């Protein structure tokens, strides 16, 4: 049975993209609930159905949970209609998480595309709250057009931070006159920025096409397969490994994923 959550704050990120900040309706459930960066959840808009998104806020920031989604179908339009104070359902934590513990002391390269920044933000915020335990942090985030960029205030905040080098980019033709950031597709920008690959972990997240184009660039930069992680976005209904639709080869994306290492992906058939 899903938890009941109360919507605290609704922020409009871009055209059709919203972030909901949720608080648990009953306090004890809220306090007992903990999750890891990388987990996802099934959000219910009662009367419409359920859909799958990552948990966009970091586990280190207690007391609330955030999710970001684009208005696309029946359930997301249901979520889109929610205002402050209204209730919705929340089934979490599901799936596995980013292995933060064994990244200690390593440099981190985050590559995100479009609406895939939310799962990364959970990790980035988590890393920034324990900044000293990690090496250099590079974020390469691309979107189609300038107003498609999500979390605009966070992007500014990361830009000012000295210990984070952020490269926001927009696809060619999506830039506006006062856009200071880069212009070009995320994989090409990654090639230009060329972060060093020794003692570094790359985390890629975006639509399947972007993942397919980013992997060769990472290889060229010398990232070994076991240092590259990604989260897969498959059609999900149950989220607990029963309904049989999210599998890539023998692996269930909802139970054995969504976070996969590239070595695991190489063994899997090309079915994502």
């Amino acid at each position, binding site marked *: 049975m899903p938890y009941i959550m109360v919507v605290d704050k609704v922020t409009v990120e871009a055209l059709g993209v919203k972030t909901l900040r949720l608080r648990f309706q009953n306090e004890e459930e809220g306090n007992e609930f903990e999750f890891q960066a990388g987990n996802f959840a099934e959000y219910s808009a009662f009367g419409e*159905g359920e859909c799958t998104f990552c948990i966009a806020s970091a586990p280190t920031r207690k007391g609330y949970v955030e999710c970001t989604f684009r208005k696309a*179908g*029946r359930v997301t*339009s249901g979520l889109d209609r929610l205002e402050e104070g209204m209730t919705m359902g929340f089934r979490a934590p599901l799936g596995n998480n980013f292995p933060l513990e064994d990244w200690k002391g390593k440099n981190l390269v985050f590559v995100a595309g479009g609406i895939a920044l939310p799962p990364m933000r959970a990790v980035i915020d988590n890393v920034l709250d324990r900044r000293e335990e990690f090496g250099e942090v590079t974020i390469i985030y691309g979107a189609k057009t300038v107003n498609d960029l999500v979390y605009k205030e966070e992007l500014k905040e990361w830009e000012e931070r000295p210990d984070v080098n952020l490269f926001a980019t927009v696809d060619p033709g999506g830039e506006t006159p006062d856009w200071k950031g880069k212009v070009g597709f995320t994989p090409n920008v990654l090639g230009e920025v060329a972060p060093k690959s020794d003692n570094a972990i790359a985390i890629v997240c975006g639509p399947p096409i972007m993942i397919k184009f980013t992997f060769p660039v990472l290889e060229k930069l010398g990232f070994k397969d076991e240092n590259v992680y990604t989260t897969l976005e498959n059609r999900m209904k149950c989220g607990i490994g029963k309904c049989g639709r999210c599998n890539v080869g023998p692996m269930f994306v909802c139970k054995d994923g969504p976070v996969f290492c590239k070595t695991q992906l190489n063994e899997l058939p090309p079915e994502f």
Partner: protein
Amino acid sequence: MTKITEKATSLLSEGTVKMIIGYEMGTERPRPLFCHTAEECEKLIMNAECKNNLAVYLTKKEIIGEEKIAVIGNYYVVKTVIQLQRENQINLDNLMVMTADENGEVITFTTIDEMKEYTDTHEPAPDPKMVAALEKIDKMSREERWEYWKSELSKCIRCYACRAACPLCYCNRCVTEVNCPQWIEPWAAPLSNMEWQINRVMHMSGRCVGCGECAAACPLDLPIGLLCKKMGMDIKSTFGEWKDGNVLSTYNIGDKENFIK
């Protein structure tokens, strides 16, 4: 070496067609066969039990591809090709339509009119079991009919074999798969099963060629063929033989009816 296999092998070896769709003998009954090479044509057969409507594959791009193919089908396949052509779903110069009469002679059609002339003259007799079932239902009172259809259709498991087997059901997103608005509930319940059948037959009205494949495909043998048959008879009696375009997408100022006052 039946005449069909001869014709098929020659077509394939000369390269006029890339693939031939026909029938082969399956576990208990004939089933569709796709011949890409000459020796596969050995298995081609054509007899009264060959019922699958092969035209269902003619609208599937992943199967027919871009090159020219041939189809050796029964009477209903030819009739469906006419209807598909009328709804411009198929590209006739990439398709060779053939059939075989009782003693195995292969008939090849080159134009639509040849097909129309063949289908008008070779109309098979209506299946007596269906005619009897229709009479039995017509004699029932309204409440009995409601109970009959509710009990029959509550068995339906919504596997959509009726939609999959029908050559004229080629929408890539069917009304049941649209969820804003959710017209028909996607789970199996007596009323939503009835709504599904009503929707399916209404979308077939005036287009259905009466091949009976929806009833044959149903694993539970539900009498859904009667619905299509009755729809076909009603349309023929009220609108007569409709030549140009589909019944519901055209209109006639002189339509007569007695219930709109």
